[in-house]
């Protein structure tokens, strides 16, 4: 038998599926398309706005000076004609990896942002679209103190343009709203801003957390460089905590976010810088950006359970509110969303998320996302 086989030896020939998987594992085509160093193409782009549609980016990026510096040139666009041009230079590992310095320049074209009016009583039928372009040059310094703790600050110059939206399904903003309804609609100055932030990340896996928490605070101050009308500050807090039970097969995840703006005396916060509520990661019973005001509170709670190692499910409850005064961010008149979700995931990341809001707001409403809820 052995002798017979010896006369008929063959080279192992994998089947088609195996060949394909071998190619993917060996060649890693995604890495070839989007290498860490070199020209690349990628799905999405840096800080691609919600609701901007499917988009792709491309550019050039490379480590410099023996990986002590890095440069990125990025362009991105979506099928809804949003676009980005960005350049970034960073020194990411100064002071034995404890300090990062960087500068970034961006030019964003957002042609059909959504606006429903200000306040909690804005009407769904008043949906309009508007153009919001911004050009920004920013310098940053980030200090990594201990594992998970980062503090830093940024200084930036920011130019903005607001205009009529190009979403043919809805009126353009100037057809429904005036500068009185939407402060900043008529004229937009250039700004400078400075901010400070601190974040403490103790999540077990930031891309698919099942234990630990993330706690971040950002304080920012905008200065109107041209009109003397829009000087204001913002403060944003994002607190997340994950309570695992049964070896992380069940997780109670909670998130609380507060975004508050505060105009200087006699000044006003332009509508396009006011925080919003609504959408896949704040209030899932309404569309993205459904509510907008000077203060926003959003609370999310999820009970997640592992169906098998590649699929988690979740029951979620979202509560949220927008208000003209910070003091009004109380527990009365909260907008609500209750629903269920499926999350196809790996241990480290959520690959595909389907959330359906069943009760509350403008339910039913569903969201398909390639990212985690929080």
């Amino acid at each position, binding site marked *: 038998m*052995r002798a017979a086989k010896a006369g008929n*030896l063959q080279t192992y020939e994998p089947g088609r599926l195996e060949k394909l998987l071998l190619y993917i594992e060996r060649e890693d085509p995604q890495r070839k398309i989007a290498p860490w160093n070199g020209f690349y193409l990628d799905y999405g782009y840096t800080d691609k706005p919600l609701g901007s549609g499917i988009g792709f980016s491309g550019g050039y990026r490379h480590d410099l000076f023996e990986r002590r510096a890095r440069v990125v040139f990025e362009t991105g666009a979506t099928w809804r004609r949003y676009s980005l041009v960005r350049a970034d230079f960073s020194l990411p590992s100064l002071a034995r990896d404890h300090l990062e310095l960087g500068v970034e320049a961006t030019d964003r074209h957002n042609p059909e942002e959504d606006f429903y009016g200000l306040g909690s009583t804005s009407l769904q039928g008043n949906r309009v679209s508007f153009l919001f372009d911004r050009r920004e040059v920013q310098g940053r310094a980030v200090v990594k103190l201990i594992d998970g703790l980062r503090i830093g600050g940024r200084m930036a110059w920011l130019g903005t343009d607001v205009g009529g939206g190009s979403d043919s399904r809805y009126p353009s903003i100037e057809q429904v709203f005036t500068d009185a309804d939407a402060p900043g609609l008529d004229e937009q100055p250039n700004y400078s801003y400075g901010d400070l932030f601190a974040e403490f990340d103790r999540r077990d896996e930031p891309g698919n957390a099942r234990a630990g928490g993330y706690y971040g605070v950002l304080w920012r101050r905008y200065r109107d460089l041209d009109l003397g009308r829009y000087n204001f500050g913002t403060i944003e807090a994002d607190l997340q905590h994950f309570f695992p039970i049964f*070896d992380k097969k069940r997780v109670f995840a909670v998130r609380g976010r507060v975004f508050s703006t505060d105009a200087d005396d006699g000044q006003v916060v332009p509508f396009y810088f006011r925080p919003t509520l609504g959408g896949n990661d704040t209030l899932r019973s309404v569309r993205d950006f459904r509510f907008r005001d000077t203060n926003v509170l959003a609370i999310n709670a999820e*009970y997640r359970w592992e169906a*098998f*190692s590649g699929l988690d499910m979740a029951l979620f409850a979202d509560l949220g509110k927008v208000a003209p005064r910070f003091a009004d961010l109380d527990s009365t008149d909260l907008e609500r969303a209750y629903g269920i979700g499926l999350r196809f995931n790996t241990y480290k990341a959520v690959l595909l998320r389907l959330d359906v809001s069943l009760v509350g707001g403008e339910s039913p409403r569903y969201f398909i996302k390639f990212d985690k809820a929080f």
Partner: protein
Amino acid sequence: MRTRRVLAAVAVTFALATGARTAGPKFFGDDPIPRDPETQDASRAQPIDSSEQFDFIENSFLKAGDRTAPHAVNVNTLDEVPDSSWFTNRAGTPDWTLADTVKGPDSENGPAEGAWTVVAAKTEGITPGMTIRDATGAKYFLKFDPPSNPEMASGAEVIATKFFHAFGYHVPENYVATLRRESLGIAAGTTIADEDRRPRRMEARDIDAILEKAARRPDGTYRVLASRELPGRPLGHFRYYGTRPDDANDIYPHEHRRELRGMLVFAAWLNHDDSRSINTLDTLITQDNRAILRHHLIDFGSTLGSGSTRAQSTRAGNEFLWESRPTLITMLTLGFYVRPWVKVRYPDYPAVGRFEANYFMPQSWKPEYPNPAFVNARPEDLFWAARIASTFTDDAVRGIVATARFSDPRAADYVAETLIHRRHKVLEAWLNATNPIDNARLDGTGRFTFENAAVRAGVSSPAERYVIEWSRFDNATSTHHRLGGEMTVTEPHAQAPAALLTDAEFVSARVRAFHPDRPAWSQAVVVYFQRTGAQWRLIGLERNP
């Protein structure tokens, strides 16, 4: 010679192989063969690349291999596995000692003290590691413990290596060693894959990046698992089904190999949930002036309570990565159905991870995903392995655990006691899953004696009775000529009928055991004896014929 007959039969089909048992002589002059005659040169074998994802898919959804589960095809006439490039009989053989068990495959004491030169490394992936040459030039792969569980992965790997070596498998030499950062240098020309998998010159900070992810001792040193490079040329992983088309010695479908089927017992005992193709390695070596492939088990980092980079998942050993039924139930009940294994509690020993014996149920133990050889395992395959496991004394278990050099003696005690407890469960499950009689003898006076492996191992009370049927066996035609009626005895010995022994060259005894709590014992074991002068020698054994 049954093995020889199967060699021919495999060429056609397994159905034919089974049928062939009744045709022609049953025993040949060299039976029972102690070594599989792997006579062919394998130097033309080529490296085979394996896809980890494909392995999961084909074993989880495509039912790879032949699932008809005939009797194991590579056993000799005593129903034992001959030595081969796959397996070497060790534990339980007459010359094997406790010291051999504890020593394992080790040929030395691990990497030599002094300068270690890094010749390769990887910073990406789940388990970063590096390859070094020690002061003597020996090459080792270094793996690290996760910071959350110092000593866990290295301890588990050393322990499992010793066990699997003693079971009979080919394994690497794995040592617990101490790495001193200051002793590490980088060989000239050493490269490391960058983020795009392109080679670039390796730098000292690459070593630091790897060490950053490793558990560090208070004195600044690192405990590492040093795995000595296997001899020979690596030619890829073997699969748990089929055969390699480029190796003429590889003629038995792997899913029908006794030692791969029986490995389920050892994997369950040691919680080797990662017993899959990706953790095997074929190497081309020279043996007896001939190139042959040797088949190894490697990478035991996910054994006992270790999940390599973290404590083992509670799912490990209890459920496949994908199982539709519990998944659907969990989905439909909104998670309020909680799989029972999720609730198991584990003691808090970081060096141990998650390892326990109270909830452990051998018969329902599972690897990460179905293993074709495990799926095909029959009671006699599992009995074969359990019988080997039964030769491990408590002292042997403790001796092996000591080689892991846990710094917390409570962790070492816990691992040893858990292994002893699990061994008891394994033996109880699988020594009793079929008729456990063994060590049959027939002396020149016709006194027939045998033993009961389950009773000997302390996992069952004795049988109420044994029923024996004697036959004269015609080897030329493989036919039994029964002599007399059934003989019933209450002890494991009997007197063979005098008329049977007169002028017979071969005789057989068909033995069944009866125990009120062990229904599987009533399955038959047939033993064959051949006259050798005035004595009889055991030449054949069929369990569940």
